[in-house]
């Protein structure tokens, strides 16, 4: 049997030697840097940005409504027969003069064109566009933009992850209870009826002629 060739032995040893050198170098690096690696335990809530808050503490809903136009519940609209189970729509969904019972989930846009009432929670995957008179009895969640060119009444609350443009009128809450609005950004025209809080995580702009 021939003895192992020295060069072959050296070649076999190179790979493990390189790996060992890499590990040793990293170990030295770790020992040198661990005292000042800057790695700290995250303190809870310290990184949360403080959003802008509008609220109406101590102001009655009626007092506000004297100076502002407030959307009122429309007269008895046509019921189109949605039942109490959830209804899903994957296309832009247009609602005219009708009442929608139960939960409504729209993967795309929801457009309210007439006098509409929504009795259950509403989830809109796209934009919510109100060109008529719309009232929402339960929570409304909008993944896209909330655009109100007519009037919208959110009796419980509304959450809009992107911008909210109000060129018409928006009412949060009701005489029976405070509501809430949690918005990405609010660009408000003239008319706001508020019983509760509006929180906007980025900016609140109060101006005429919003888009």
């Amino acid at each position: 049997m021939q003895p192992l060739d020295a060069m072959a032995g050296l070649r076999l040893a190179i790979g493990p030697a390189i790996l060992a050198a890499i590990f040793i170098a990293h170990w030295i690096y770790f020992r040198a840097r661990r005292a000042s690696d800057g790695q700290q335990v995250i303190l809870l809530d310290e990184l949360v940005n403080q959003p802008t808050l509008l609220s109406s503490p101590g102001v009655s809903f009626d007092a506000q409504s004297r100076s502002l136009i407030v959307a009122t519940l429309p007269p008895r609209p046509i019921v189109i027969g949605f039942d109490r189970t959830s209804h899903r729509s994957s296309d832009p969904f247009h609602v005219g003069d009708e009442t929608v019972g139960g939960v409504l989930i729209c993967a795309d846009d929801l457009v309210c064109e007439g006098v509409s009432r929504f009795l259950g929670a509403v989830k809109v995957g796209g934009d919510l566009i109100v060109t008529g008179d719309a009232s929402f009895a339960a929570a409304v969640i909008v993944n896209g933009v909330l655009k109100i060119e007519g009037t919208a009444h959110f009796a419980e609350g509304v959450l809009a992850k992107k911008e909210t443009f109000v060129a018409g009128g928006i009412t949060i809450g009701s005489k029976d209870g405070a509501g809430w609005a949690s918005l990405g950004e609010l660009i408000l025209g003239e008319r706001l009826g508020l019983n509760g809080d509006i929180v906007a995580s980025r900016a609140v702009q109060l101006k005429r002629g919003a888009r």
Partner: protein
Amino acid sequence: MTNLLIQLGFMLIFAINALVTLIFLVRQITFSVVGVAHPRVNLFSKAKLSNWPTVTILVAAHNEEKVLSGCLEHLVKLDYPSDAYNVIVVNDRSVDGTAAILDAAAARSNGRIEAIHRVPGSTPGKPAALADAFARVTSELVVFFDADYLPHPPLLKKLVAPFIDPEVAATMGRVVPYNTQTNLLTRLLDLERRGGYAIDQAVRAAWNLLPQFGGTVGGVRMAALAEVGGWSADTLAEDTDLTYRLFAKGYTVEYIDDAMCYEESPANWHVRYKQIRRWACGHNQCLFRYFRSTLTTPHQTLTRRLDASLVLLFFLFPSLSLIGLGAAMVYPTLYAFPPFNFAVISAFSFVVAFGNFSPYFQIVAALVRDRQPSAVAMLPLIFLSSAISMMASTDGLVRALWGAMSNRHLQWDKTVRFRKEGDLAAA
């Protein structure tokens, strides 16, 4: 002819590896860039509900005497209507002081904490333990915490608020290790956690994709759970299993970035290996079961379906990388190095090597977002935990395949705890 087939086989391995790596690389870099810019405020946290739903908090405890009392002390002090939440703790056949600690805490809690003691011989594992607890749940929601977690008072409302969205069937908060400074492993795990939560989960939520329900620091809507067949105890990744069953039915998971809770990271490499192996095994079980339904469900958009399917491949990717590396080492020993082979190997090596750095981008982005950029000093060492994860993931994949072929129940490996007196000071 045989030679040609073998070469084609190698080319196929290289091509699949490079393609998958490239897809993940593009995804991770895109997420990293977007994640840095994404604001941290979760709008659901700002919703002021007038009627908070009823909640049952579930905790499974197996030999948790070192950590359980801290968890229970925090659970009874949550900022939530006191008549709207209760706690059920399952003592899962513990042989240490867990049972005594639990009974004492329940006695002091004025009925808020309910104890369940599972008898020896019960089906082992957290999913099976929680299945026993579900029989006693009557609330609208359940929220899960592990026994080593330390939830702060505002946390429960943050986890519950997103359920005002009718599409949300589960919520997930952010897990923050508190023992980051213990040793090298805990430092590396902290980096990995940051990348996974602060960037990957957050961007999935921001882009309306599918965040993962992690089985802890999260809640589930009971009505949705019933709709998808209830709690499953025959999987090692009950959280992933539930996520994809809900997804197929049209529901989603909401990730709340500012709903943070401290946890204890494994401080031992062997424990970490077993943890990754269990995750990989369970995750791949879900891959086998739900990949097709995830891609084809009519209740979700195409983008959501594609990303959710990609996430199912997460624990397959390390094994593919390992196979590709092995093939790249074997191929030159079988075939000479004409320019074509050299070009193929070089291109493959570049793509895979660069692609394997994709988690690094997320970690760096997370450190920037967390305002701790100097912690990047530990990043060059992340390859150590990546190497362990690669081996453990492959081990887990093999076990998942074996379990699928043999139809056997796979064993749950308990994560060992390391907390000592004084460790709670950081929390």
